[in-house]
């Protein structure tokens, strides 16, 4: 079937609900309204109010109730309406979902998926555009998955539903509908913890995830006209991430640029650059570059196009990496 990212996500939930009766979908407006982005459109009508249901407008309990459901053996898919609202859920995610398995010596698990759209350049109000993956990547016990295409959105979400660990699934809001592609019908999984090479190249490695994969591909295309060959690594799973694929690519190209729209300081770029210098230092021909949001809160809408890395920002850093 042909699908954009939000349709692929909806299809994944439909497949998950149909194949496993322990799967339930809960969140604000996910029922009759089908979610503010229509990700759950039609699911309540198809599977009933016991399987797909609205919760009170209270993010901490959407996740907290999910922990209780999971502890009792169900497999909840919780929707948080916008990624910025994950701040409110951090206690339930970090102090509860992430630690239930350890606390019970493995007797219980919080196998659950917490879905949230993230990211800027969509002219949303305050706190609707934040990219909070670094907070979550700093929380061992929770996996963080960020798809970039209709194909991996569906396959990763189905893998996340089957995973026994809690998974935060951050969906690239900006490209929800921008990208249409053929995806397989029915059930398939894209393995968690594995990166993919989105574009092969020789001169420099671009490491990205989520919506910035598409931006990195755009930059790579532009740079190829200048004779620069970029390899684009799409992490897919941001935590725990596939260091081996990143390192193998950097060992091949000798240069790396990490791209994300989250805040720069202590972001994934810092983590990835540190691992590259620890483990591939002697392959490096130039310092690792970072293309990121600023060390500021996500800005007012009038400045967001400057804050969120575009192809021009990425190309600038690639040229810097190639100067040395």
């Amino acid at each position, binding site marked *: 079937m042909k699908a954009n990212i939000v349709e692929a996500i909806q299809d994944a939930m439909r497949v998950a609900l149909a194949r496993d009766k322990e799967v339930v979908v809960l969140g604000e407006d996910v029922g009759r309204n089908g979610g503010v982005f229509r990700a759950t459109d039609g699911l309540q009508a198809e599977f009933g109010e016991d399987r797909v249901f609205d919760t009170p407008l209270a993010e901490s309990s959407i996740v*907290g109730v999910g922990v209780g459901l999971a502890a009792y053996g169900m497999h909840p898919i919780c929707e948080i309406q916008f990624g910025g609202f994950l701040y409110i859920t951090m206690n339930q995610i970090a102090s509860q979902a992430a630690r239930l398995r350890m606390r019970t010596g493995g007797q219980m698990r919080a196998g659950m998926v917490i879905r949230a759209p993230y990211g800027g350049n969509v002219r949303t109000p305050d706190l609707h555009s934040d990219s909070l993956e670094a907070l979550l990547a700093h929380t061992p016990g929770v996996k963080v998955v960020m798809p970039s295409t209709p194909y991996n959105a569906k396959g990763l979400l189905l893998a996340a539903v089957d995973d026994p660990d809690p998974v935060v699934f951050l969906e690239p809001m900006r490209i929800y509908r921008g990208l249409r592609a053929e995806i397989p019908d029915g059930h398939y999984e894209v393995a968690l913890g594995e990166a993919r090479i989105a574009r092969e190249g020789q001169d420099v490695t671009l490491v990205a995830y989520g919506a910035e994969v598409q931006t990195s591909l755009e930059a790579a295309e532009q740079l190829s006209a200048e004779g620069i060959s970029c390899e684009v690594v799409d992490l897919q799973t941001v935590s725990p991430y596939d260091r081996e694929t990143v390192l193998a690519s950097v060992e091949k190209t000798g240069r790396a640029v990490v791209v994300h729209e989250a805040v720069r300081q202590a972001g994934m770029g810092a983590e990835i650059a540190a691992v590259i210098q620890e483990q591939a230092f002697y392959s490096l021909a130039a310092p690792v570059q970072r293309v990121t949001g600023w060390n500021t809160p996500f800005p007012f809408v009038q400045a967001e196009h400057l804050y969120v890395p575009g192809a021009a920002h990425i190309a600038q850093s690639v040229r810097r990496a190639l100067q040395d």
Partner: protein
Amino acid sequence: MPESFLRPPKAEFPLVRLVGEDGTRLGHSPTEPDAETQTQLFRWMVFGRVFDQRMISLQRQGRIGTIGTIRGQEASAAGLALAMRRTDWLVGSYRELLAYVAHGVAIENVLNLYRGGVPGPFPEGVGAMPVQIVIGTQLPHAAGAALAAKLRGSDDVVVGCCGDGATSEGDFHEGLNFAGAHKVPAVFFVQNNGWAISVPRGRQTASETIAEKAWGYGMPGVLVDGNDALAVYAVAKEAIDRARAGEGPALIEALTYRVGPHTTSDDPRRYRSDDEVAQHEKDDPIVRLRLLMEKEGAYEEGMQERFEEEARAAMSLAIERAEAVANVTPETIFDLTWAAPTPSVLRDRQRTLEDLKEIGEVGKE
């Protein structure tokens, strides 16, 4: 025109009591404990007193870490636990340790936890989530587990417990609000022991009772004398039976008093007077139940001493078993973090172990 449009926050929640402080019978209830259950209540309350003393002395000897005290709250814990079925879920905190053990969790589970280790699997068939340390966070879990029980067609009831301090947390509101809105088979049980470390109940909330907060969630509430084991059992049983019958959640406030410090690290003299404590100590729930049983001919000579002896023996055996095992290794920590580790996680684990080995911290003969 009325003098004011505003309505006062007034609600009548009379204190439910079946037994007076001097052991006088004040009333009966269709859900009160039968004679055998009364004896079991007494037995578990005596156990709780011995448990508390023993845990504090283990902490003083450096054999366990900081522990919360439960002295004075035995009737609340035992009354609740005995009103539950073994498969019902107990979702509580460190102030409910007696309830956990009376519900069927092993003493060793608790000892392992306070020895700084993995609590170990709870005994088969006992419904319980782990002892919660983060205040109030367990209440949405209780709502969720209750929803799961309902969706799966089980008739288990989930009991979410917390203290008066936790009722100020957002998760108290969110958990009860969800439970009411989705009419799940849950009972919320608040042990109001008067103090959240040093902050008195009056500084937590302006509402006259905690029980009346139930109104805001569309569920029935009850204020019960938490030092009256019979009354606690009776109200808990009614609320649990009602939830099991599909009639939705309820909120119980058990009014009790924390006679001991918050934990072994706390010095309550900094914030409350010895007089206040002495006043409350006079109302010992164990004495109250014993006086009632004596008056009603249910107390057998030497019963308390026998139960104390039995409790000491059970504690000694559990301590001996728990201390024979050190169940945490670095591998444990990595392996319990992820159920499905990725290759990067396994490399991290290996590297950490190798580093520790190199400096002689693991793999020592």
